[in-house]
């Protein structure tokens, strides 16, 4: 693991604590509407249909 990635991990941990994120998450968040997700998924499948 290079130093930059390691530093990013440390900062990310610090941010998690600062945001008060629980280590015991109950359910991951969905931050996108179903409509928007459907649009993006269709678009992604066009270029990602490998």
């Amino acid at each position, binding site marked *: 693991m290079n130093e930059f990635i390691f530093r990013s991990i440390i900062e*990310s941990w610090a941010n998690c604590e600062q945001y008060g994120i629980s280590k015991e998450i109950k*359910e991951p*968040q969905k*931050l996108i509407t179903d409509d928007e*997700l459907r649009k993006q*998924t269709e678009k992604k499948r066009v*270029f990602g249909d*490998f």
Partner: protein
Amino acid sequence: MHKYIDAIRVERGYYCFLVLNEELTILDVFFPRWINISGHCTFKKYLKPGVSFCIKSVGTNAVFIAKQSNTPVYLDPQFHYCNVLKEWHEYCVPIWDGYKKAYVSLICADHPISSALKGFVDLVAKNMCCTSYTQGISGTKNDLTKKLTQQHKLILKRIAQGMTDEQIAHELEISLSTVRFHAQNIFKIFNVGTRIEAVIKAIIQNEIFISDLYDGFY
């Protein structure tokens, strides 16, 4: 995806592939058909389209770090912030399709991700950001590949393993110019210009397999 993912059927354990958008939202989840995830509750609960992998949602994870660093990132379980992710090994590769960033991530629940699987994710990511490939590989198997000789395949496998022409010549006990001659013919057969393109097309067309890329898995 599934027809190509069969190439790595030899891999064991609970693992799956994710495609995420620039905002770190899961767009697609691919579970290999031979993996029964019903016994793995965190996979079912967390890995579904629409779930966000930003840190406010699931804490520190490889996708977020890959976005920060803009490089492929392997995250060992202990580096995850949230406890439920601490059993996950995660490898994420950022991709650029010419317009937007996206991410391909592999999550393995029970043991470290092998070099073969990481190599596969690299190839998938490379494949996804090359639209010319998307067109080229979506059709039926190229008849030209029937022209591949046994010698071509021996050389292709070694190219896939990252060997130089000199190393291939030494290992196969043939001259350097012969290796270069065959390599050029391979490029012509696959209609490609680089070694990585030849390897990707060869894997996709089942001329060589992921297991050929590495000497051993574990």
